[in-house]
């Protein structure tokens, strides 16, 4: 029930924030912030009664009772569709990330949104609810439902409150994700039909569908459907073209949610569904997937380097960083997977912060063009210092979360394929190049006369507090990543066990 409550609180909170607009103009954002914090607090209180997740035995992937939480109720029994939610270490990490970044996004919308505030905060809360659903549902139909439904509020956020080219960006975003969603729907139904053919019962439950026996060719095609859907969302090369537009045109809070959380649903889907459901097909495909990942790392970095739009640069850097996640997942060993999970969390914070800085700049300068910015540090030293911090975090400075993540991925990947590792590692260098370029162009250099007597306001207490939270998170992840690794470890181990090639496993026993 806890998991249902988490989602319902957000849904009801959305309605409340629409209604609260009648009380006062500034009420919706307060209500929304309150709702997210209550949700977070509620989760933490419920967790405190549980055994320490790091001490838990490895959950058995196909045994729901070994998970942290599990809930199941009938929904459409005619097709074996149920409301099945479950939480394990990885889902928990993602849920926490979602709620924390949700609060940060609301803070980012504090002064950014000037019209129809109630409806905006409602959309924000509803998309958070959808994302929570994605991270927790283990019925494939329910998962698909959340997967699709979380896009509608996001669509509205871009289409109504976005920047100059919002219509195009919102449309492109929606069509890309919906079209790939349809592929996933067909794949889900095909998988269920195969299972129905084998067992004679309809079931969409993850636990029933693991270990579905099917022909190699069938498994390959179905797996591909899942893969494309998730990689579009990730986004991986060559399905990333919606991302720069959507991120650039979205309002700041929208960008924070998109980059911080929505992209992670793709990675989560790969770890949770695309590989475990089709272990052999995924293994056969892993080589191609890793090349796509490496291509994404390099391609994203090169394109980021060529951008003049502050937000677009960050958007392309996301493509590059998410390439590491793809690499980590398809290397499919514990180190690399740990790195991928770490990257999901760390990238969530660093990119969210950069998008907030971009949003603050746009709010003050009314432009995102870096050619117009220069020497802003002199006028806004606090913002400059904060930007510096997140830029070096994003380029992978040791001591901060992103470094741990990328290092782990490369370490794990090295055991699998040296050449891909070499190519991916160049991403660290190019990352440094575009990140520093961003810094130089906007904050360093001569003061642009245009802004000299503009009276630019530096970051205030609210912004510093928000940034501070993310800074502390990244430093903690960088110097003491153990809690995150511990939370993910049992889950990853059980997944690795589950997908271990049975032939290989029995060979080991023989020895």
């Amino acid at each position: 029930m806890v998991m249902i409550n988490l989602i319902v609180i957000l849904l009801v909170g959305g309605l409340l924030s629409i209604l609260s607009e009648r009380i006062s103009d500034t009420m919706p954002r307060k209500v929304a912030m309150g709702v997210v914090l209550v949700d977070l607090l509620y989760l933490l209180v419920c967790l405190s009664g549980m055994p320490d997740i790091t001490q838990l035995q490895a959950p058995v992937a196909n045994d729901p009772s070994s998970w942290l939480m599990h809930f199941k109720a009938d929904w459409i029994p005619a097709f074996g569709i149920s409301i099945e939610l479950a939480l394990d270490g990885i889902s928990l990490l993602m849920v926490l990330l979602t709620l924390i970044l949700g609060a940060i996004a609301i803070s980012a919308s504090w002064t950014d949104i000037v019209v129809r505030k109630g409806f905006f905060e409602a959309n924000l809360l509803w998309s958070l609810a959808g994302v929570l659903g994605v991270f927790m549902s283990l019925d494939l139909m329910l998962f698909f439902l959340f997967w699709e439904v979380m896009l509608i509020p996001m669509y509205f956020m871009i289409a109504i409150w976005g920047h100059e080219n919002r219509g195009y960006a919102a449309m492109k975003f929606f069509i890309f994700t919906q079209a790939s969603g349809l592929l996933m729907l067909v794949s889900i139904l095909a998988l269920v039909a195969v299972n129905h053919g084998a067992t004679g019962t309809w079931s969409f439950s993850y636990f029933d569908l693991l270990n579905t026996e099917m022909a190699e060719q069938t498994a390959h095609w179905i797996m591909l459907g899942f893969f494309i859907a998730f990689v579009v969302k990730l986004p991986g090369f060559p399905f990333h073209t919606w991302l720069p537009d959507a991120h650039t045109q979205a309002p700041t809070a929208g960008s924070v949610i998109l980059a911080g959380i929505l992209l992670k649903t793709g990675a989560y889907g790969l770890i949770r569904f695309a590989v475990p459901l089709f272990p052999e097909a995924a293994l056969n495909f892993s080589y191609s997937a890793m090349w796509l990942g490496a291509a994404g790392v390099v391609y994203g970095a090169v394109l980021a380097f060529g951008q003049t739009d502050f937000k677009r640069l960050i958007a392309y850097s996301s493509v590059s960083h998410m390439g590491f996640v793809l690499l980590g997942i398809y290397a499919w060993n514990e180190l690399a997977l740990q790195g991928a999970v770490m990257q999901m969390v760390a990238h969530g914070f660093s990119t969210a912060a950069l998008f907030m800085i971009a949003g603050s700049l746009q709010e003050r300068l009314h432009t995102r063009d870096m050619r117009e910015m220069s020497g802003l540090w002199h006028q806004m030293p606090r913002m400059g210092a904060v930007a510096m911090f997140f830029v070096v975090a994003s380029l992978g400075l040791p001591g901060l979360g992103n470094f741990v993540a990328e290092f782990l991925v490369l370490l794990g990947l090295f055991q699998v394929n040296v050449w891909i590792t070499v190519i991916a590692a160049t991403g660290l260098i190019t990352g440094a190049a575009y990140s520093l370029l961003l810094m130089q162009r906007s904050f360093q250099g001569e003061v642009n006369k245009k802004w000299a007597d503009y009276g630019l306001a530096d970051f205030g207490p609210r912004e510093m507090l928000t940034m501070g939270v993310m800074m502390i998170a990244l430093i903690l992840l960088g110097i003491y990543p153990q809690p995150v690794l511990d939370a993910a470890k049992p889950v990853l181990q059980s997944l690795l066990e589950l997908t271990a090639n049975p032939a290989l496993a029995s060979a080991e026993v023989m020895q």
Partner: protein
Amino acid sequence: MNATMFSALAPILILSLTAIVLMIQASIKRDQSLAWVITAVGFVLTLCGAYYARDFTQSVTILLQVDHWSLFFTSLIMIASLVTLVLSRDTFSPEGERKEEYYLLLVLSVLGAVVLIQSSHMVSLLLGMELMGVALYAMIAFPERGQLPLEGAIKYLVLSACASAMLLYGFALIYAATGELSYAGIGAKGASAYIENPMLIMAGSAMVLAGIGFKLSVAPFHMWTPDVYQGAPTPVTGFLATVSKGAVFVALSRFYIDGGLDQYSGLNTALVVLAIASMLVGNWLALRQENIKRLLAYSSIAHFGYLLVVLIALTYVDAGLVSQSITFYLTAYMITTLAAFTVVSTVAGEDTAKQDISAFEGLFWHRPLEASALTVAMLSLAGIPLTAGFMAKFFVITLGIQSGLWGLLAALVVGSAVAIYYYLRVIFAMSKSTKSTGKSANRLEKLLALVLMASILVLGSWPQPFIAYAGGL
């Protein structure tokens, strides 16, 4: 004929009675409001009649088959007709002219649709289709002024006449081959007749298919659809899109299932071609439409393409699942389409300029209820989860996968992906911040929009009861 047969025919009898009362009323005292009330009472009574007839299901003569399935669809089209009636009131009243005949035509057309749904014989099929069609020509052309309605009516008339001619010729060929006109008889004798004379059966059923294809407006028989949709008064368009097409599809599936037409692989191939063409052509041509009624016309072409997949799957899966899917899909489609036309009718009315998508700009902020209803309808047509349209698509895809119809599924995925664009355009326009003005909705129309929106959402988020009910029909 015995007494229980009359009970089974209750819906048809009540509708006929309503038509007679309307005629008498018109000859005694011409009063539009009175005609409206008589029609409404007649429709509600027919709905009760359909409920009452459930205990008397049987074949009524060789022509009609009254069973739970046909009674369900009878009720469904009665509901759709009631919606049409509510919308018609405003559309036809302010002109202050004598418009009672419209209601008579509406009743006759509904009567035709009910006959069509219950038909189990080619004669009743043709009778129902003609009765429904002839009344519809007049309804389309009913606004005397204006070129578009007349143009639409003439197009519909000429093409429908061609379609009927083809249908008749097809019947003749099938009769020549099998010596049967009832679906069951064709089903029984078809296989042996096919061995003797394959060409006759093939040519005959292909012509029947073409004739019905015109009415359903599946590609390549879709040319009339956008003009008629645009030209007809909006309530009539809604009626045409739901009652007329729904009834024809029910008749087609009954003919197909009872007549055992799925055993002819040539016919199946033809259906596959029609389905793929409809999905692609419908969705493709909808992309550039500016008028929302034209957009909905192309969207309906695509939707009947999706629906044909279910019929094609009949060869591979059992008929129960097929009729369950048809029930669900048609219900979802009709409710969604009605919701869309309700909003279009209340917001835009008969003003062609206001039917442009750009005229819907800012609707969210001025008339949130109507905008929400239209948004939900668009999302349902696009097949987004939590709406009825999604569950409908779920059925189609499930059947397609079970039957291994991968080509059709590919067309469905491509078509649906394209479709998202034009459905979103409408939603995007509504979310813009511009001033918009339109005729104000009366309370009944607002209630209607609310109820239809709620049914789409309930059917999509809690479909279990209805799935179980549809499975038991």
